[in-house]
């Protein structure tokens, strides 16, 4: 079942066209990523979906609701974490959750939620004394406290250190396991690749492609490279005989094998056949960055 349907969304600001033509559907229980460079229209798109901003053209439905005319009903099914929204400086963590829980008729138990986002120990800490990662986790908790069916998370891990980022990713996966559909806005390809079931690549207010991360990468040809240092001399023809291999080059002692498909297993198997061990084995694959570059002619970040 499609819980979010967006068709030909358009949003014009006084000075520029933020969203030109965006369409996508999100299935219930999915983590759907919206990936694109800064200024591509990602945030405007999700703000229109969440009813925080009114769109000028196209149709948007969230659980069958129109965000423009049924804002109040929408607030009960959709929780949102906004890119640059905060809380009063001196509000304590538990007070914020308790307060936001009171805004909904059937809220989640905020004590459980507090434990789930790992802020138990920060219960009585004021908002201004939380670290960036802790604020983001509180923000996720606030987006979930109304027991929404859809949670929109905008640039959740921007500005976080790698550890905090990984913790947040884990949290998002847990949230999905509880059945909440997640729309994740990001400009980190690693984040999108790791978390999302499907991704919409957006550039200049338009959808460039929608696919699974693997599907998007496969579109750029699926070229892979395997680098290793063989334990004994290898004849090029040995590897070139494999259907997966396209090219073999050498740089010093290192061999670089390019190709596609199940390249790495095929190469290592062939080497093993001749009792050769590939030392310092490294596999290089195309990334979402490459996919974005191939699809738009521009780099993602």
């Amino acid at each position, binding site marked *: 079942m499609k819980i979010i349907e967006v068709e030909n969304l358009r949003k014009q600001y006084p000075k520029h066209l933020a969203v030109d033509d965006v369409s996508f559907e999100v299935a219930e229980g999915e983590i759907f990523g919206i990936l694109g460079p800064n200024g591509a229209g990602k945030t405007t798109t999700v703000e229109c979906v969440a009813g925080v901003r009114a769109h000028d053209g196209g149709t948007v439905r969230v659980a069958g609701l129109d965000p423009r005319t049924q804002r109040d009903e929408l*607030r009960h099914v959709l929780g*949102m974490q906004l890119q640059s*929204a905060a809380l009063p400086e001196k509000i304590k963590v538990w007070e914020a959750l308790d307060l936001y829980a009171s805004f909904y008729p059937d809220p989640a138990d905020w004590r459980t939620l507090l434990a789930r986002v790992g802020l138990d120990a920060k219960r009585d800490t004021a908002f201004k004394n939380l670290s960036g990662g802790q604020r983001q986790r509180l923000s996720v908790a606030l987006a979930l406290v109304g027991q929404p069916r859809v949670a929109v998370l905008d640039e959740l891990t921007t500005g976080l250190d790698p550890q905090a980022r990984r913790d947040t990713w884990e949290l998002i996966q847990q949230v999905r396991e509880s059945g909440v559909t997640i729309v994740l806005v990001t400009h980190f390809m690693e984040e999108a690749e790791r978390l999302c079931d499907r991704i919409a690549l957006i550039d200049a207010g338009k959808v460039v492609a929608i696919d699974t991360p693997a599907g998007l990468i496969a579109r750029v040809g699926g070229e892979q490279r395997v680098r290793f240092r063989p334990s004994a001399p290898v004849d090029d023809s040995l590897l070139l005989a494999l259907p997966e291999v396209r090219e073999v080059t050498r740089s010093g002692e290192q061999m670089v094998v390019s190709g596609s498909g199940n390249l790495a297993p095929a190469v290592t198997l062939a080497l093993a056949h001749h009792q050769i061990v590939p030392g310092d084995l490294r596999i290089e694959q195309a990334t979402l960055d490459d996919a974005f570059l191939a699809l738009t002619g521009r780099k993602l970040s």
Partner: protein
Amino acid sequence: MKLLFVEAKLHLREWPFLMFTVGLPLLLLIVLGTSIPDFTKVGENGERFVDTQLPSMMTLLSLLTLACSVLPAVMATYRDQGVLRRMSTTPVHPGRLLGVQLLINLVVAVVTVVLLIVAGSLFFGSSAPRQWAWFGLVFLLGTAALMAMGLVIAAVAPNGKVAPGIGSAVMFPLLFLAGMWVPRDVMPDALRVISDYSVAGPFAQALKDTWQGHAPQLIHLVVVAAGLALFGGLAVRLFRWE
């Protein structure tokens, strides 16, 4: 209800606010009243300076601090930091937060006035406002007009740090026109005419009149009500949630 409770707690945590809105007027009344001999001498109009002039000025000081500094600082900060925007994604409209803030400011103002009356009676044996019903009406009307003005300041201030600065620029002229340093009775005519239209001036006069036991003058009520309508309208037009 919980919103009111939490916002009230947050207000109390900003204790310097209360020092200026409750503590300072109260302290000034007591210190000035006990240290300046002239303030406790019976004047030509048959009453002492500490009876109505001083407490009505202190009431105005508290109200103007609330309306020009506290309210704009809180609301502009909430807008600036995205607190209002965050709330607009929940089923509760951020307008509720504004309503709660106004209510909290009103409560602080009422507490201040009650304390001023109690202190006046304890220290100087002054009597409470004799026309208490009129006094209450004037108080509510004037408070509403000043709060509306405070919301206009919050609306035009670019952020929560600038808001109190703009507020001070508005507050001190108004305090002067209300008679804080030169009582309205002894103002030169030209100045009193300006004072008559400054909203704070007629408000102060009406407070004093009702404190003394007279009915307020209609013209004063009309000017204050006009101020409420003007600033209220402007606030509705100008106030931004994000």
